């Protein structure tokens, strides 16, 4: 490191002026309420929202005794990994495509941002209407294409509905992921690509050995953010199936909501929310370890 940077590090206030504001905002807006949430999970809260005192681990015990929890946990894992994996795999070629030169590329880029720009509630509502068994357009299209004979209730059975939920999850995640990768692609200097061509590597080989490794930082960011957002995703499932029938399409996030606002059990819901946080924390740490984040960022 050069002298200039070294002197910066030895400055009197150190990192504080740089990262201080960020830390302050995060502490006030996120950390303190998170603390509150964890605290509530140990409280006895009645149906009106009034705190009735310490409850120990009773809320957690009730939660663990919830018969639907097991299925919900499994479904959550499938939901998170399925959606993020497919999104990442599909976004890579899409980013390449958006980076290539073809007529109308600008318009296609604008079209790609629409699912990101639209609120997820709106997108989920649109899909719900399209997939409706009675007046949805999807049935019309399939019947007109002679793929099916009778209207199908696409969100009718739990497994089929869950598949469609995952498809919509991928649909809303692709634009963001593609643009992060696209931003990453644009930082790859042309000289490196030129040099590769000169060396005789082209197409797939160039992609695999040169471009993809340079995309790692972007992919990491996109994957981590997607893992978190998909885990916390609420509107898609809620709007399209409300986690039903029963609890058959619920994830841990929608279940937490149901415990709070259907079962009116705020304490148990706070314990679910705390457990949710621990789950995603474990996911992310495991992911970062597996993808050797620390090595890579040194």
């Amino acid at each position: 490191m050069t002298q200039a940077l070294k002197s910066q590090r030895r400055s009197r206030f150190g990192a504080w002026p740089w990262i201080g504001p960020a830390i302050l905002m995060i502490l006030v807006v996120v950390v303190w309420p998170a603390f509150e949430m964890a605290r509530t999970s140990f409280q006895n809260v009645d149906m009106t929202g009034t705190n009735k005192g310490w409850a120990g681990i009773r809320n957690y015990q009730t939660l663990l005794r919830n018969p639907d929890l097991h299925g919900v946990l499994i479904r959550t894992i499938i939901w998170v990994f399925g959606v993020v994996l497919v999104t990442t795999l599909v976004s890579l070629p899409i980013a390449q495509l958006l980076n290539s030169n073809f007529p109308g590329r600008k318009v296609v880029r604008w079209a790609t941002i629409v699912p990101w720009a639209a609120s997820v509630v709106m997108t989920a509502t649109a899909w719900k209407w399209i997939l409706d068994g009675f007046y949805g357009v999807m049935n019309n299209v399939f019947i007109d294409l002679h793929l099916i004979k009778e209207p199908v209730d696409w969100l009718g059975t739990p497994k089929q509905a869950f598949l469609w939920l995952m498809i919509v999850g991928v649909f809303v995640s692709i634009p963001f992921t593609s643009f992060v990768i696209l931003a990453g692609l644009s930082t790859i200097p042309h000289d490196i690509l030129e040099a590769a061509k000169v060396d005789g590597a082209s197409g797939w080989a160039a992609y695999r050995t040169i471009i993809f490794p340079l995309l790692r930082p972007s992919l990491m960011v996109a994957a981590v953010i997607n893992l978190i957002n998909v885990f916390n995703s609420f509107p898609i499932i809620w709007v399209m199936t409300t986690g039903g029938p029963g609890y058959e399409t619920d994830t841990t996030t929608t279940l937490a909501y149901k415990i709070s606002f259907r079962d009116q059990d705020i304490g148990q819901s706070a314990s679910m929310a705390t457990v949710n946080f621990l789950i995603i924390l474990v996911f992310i740490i495991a992911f970062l370890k597996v993808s050797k984040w620390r090595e890579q960022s040194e």
Partner: protein
Amino acid sequence: MKKVMRRTAITAVFGLIATAALGVTTSTAASQVELKMVAADYANMQPFWDDLSAKFTAANPGIKVSVNVVSWDTIDDKVKTLIATGQTPDIVNKGDYSAPAAAGLLYKASEMVSPSTLADIVPTFLNNSMYNGVAYAVPDLASARALFYNKDILAQAGVKTLPTTWTELEKVLKQIKAKVPGVYPYAIPLGPEEAQAEFAIWAGGNGGRMFANGKWTLNSPKNIATMAFLKKLTDEKLTQPNPAKCDRTACAQTLFAAGKAAFINGSVFLPSWLTANGGAKIKLGSGSFVHGPAQKAVTLGVQDYFTAYKANNHQAEITKFMDFIFQPANYAAFLKAAGGFIPATKSAGTIAAKDPALAPFIKLLPSAIFYPGDQASWPAVKGAIQQSIGTATISDPKKVMNALQAKALAAK
């Protein structure tokens, strides 16, 4: 140099934010009382409430009323959050009252309105606003349900008389299925939107109740039999597929409006809903609900409530505003804004009885059953029913009802 600049800039920004924050805390005049109200949104109610509170402040200078109109599916959360953070509102207009009543948070109905207003409330509705024998809420309006049918479909199927019992119903539905293809004989919505209403109607017709003799009776033999009957109808394809996923408005009523269902359990303003949603051409007939073997026909009454919270000690002002709402002209405007409901007062009721759309429902009210809204745990039980009762039609009714009963008993 840069370091100092940065620190100054950041301090300045935070200083600005702090000043803005402090600047917001303007103090109001000492003699001004502000009533905070949260009201459910029947149908774009904000203009009505804004207008009414302006009129009230003009007549009562010194009392300001701010009304926060919230949609039905978020009002429960909003009120709960307000209470949980010490921001308890003064008046709340929504669909239940028993939980805060049980927690001792509410004024009694007699403390909320003047005696003359209270005397004008229809006794049936006031009786359904009680907790432990004392009225803790003032009903705002009500609706009743009736059986509706598509006259054309019944004529096409050759059905001459309306079924009154379950056995007759099954026969008629099979007849319709055979004679009129492409139509679902009965649209039964057991999806989360209002499954508790659909259940209450069918169960009530079989003599079953959700709560009776001081305890929850969700898994009573009669109720299990009712769900078994509905499962039978579903299995025999006499209903639309998947009742558990069918919500009342988006699914059942929509099917009916498109002429794809013969029977439906509907509310007092189904006719106007149909006209506005593509069902104007449906020739509508109505009658009483079917009942189980050796039972009587019932109808379901649903009402909503005004509740007043003690937290801010504004009893005098609250009473003034509540009486203002119930002044005949204002109350009539309220009913008009909400659209098509049955009034909760006797005086407005006599006027409504002349309305041909409302008259038959008002006549049915004496035989109406209501939700066990006076039970503190009713909101939780309602939530559980909405969530899972539909699954009884695709799995084992006894297991589902037992699970619901367990949830009801566990709810505090």
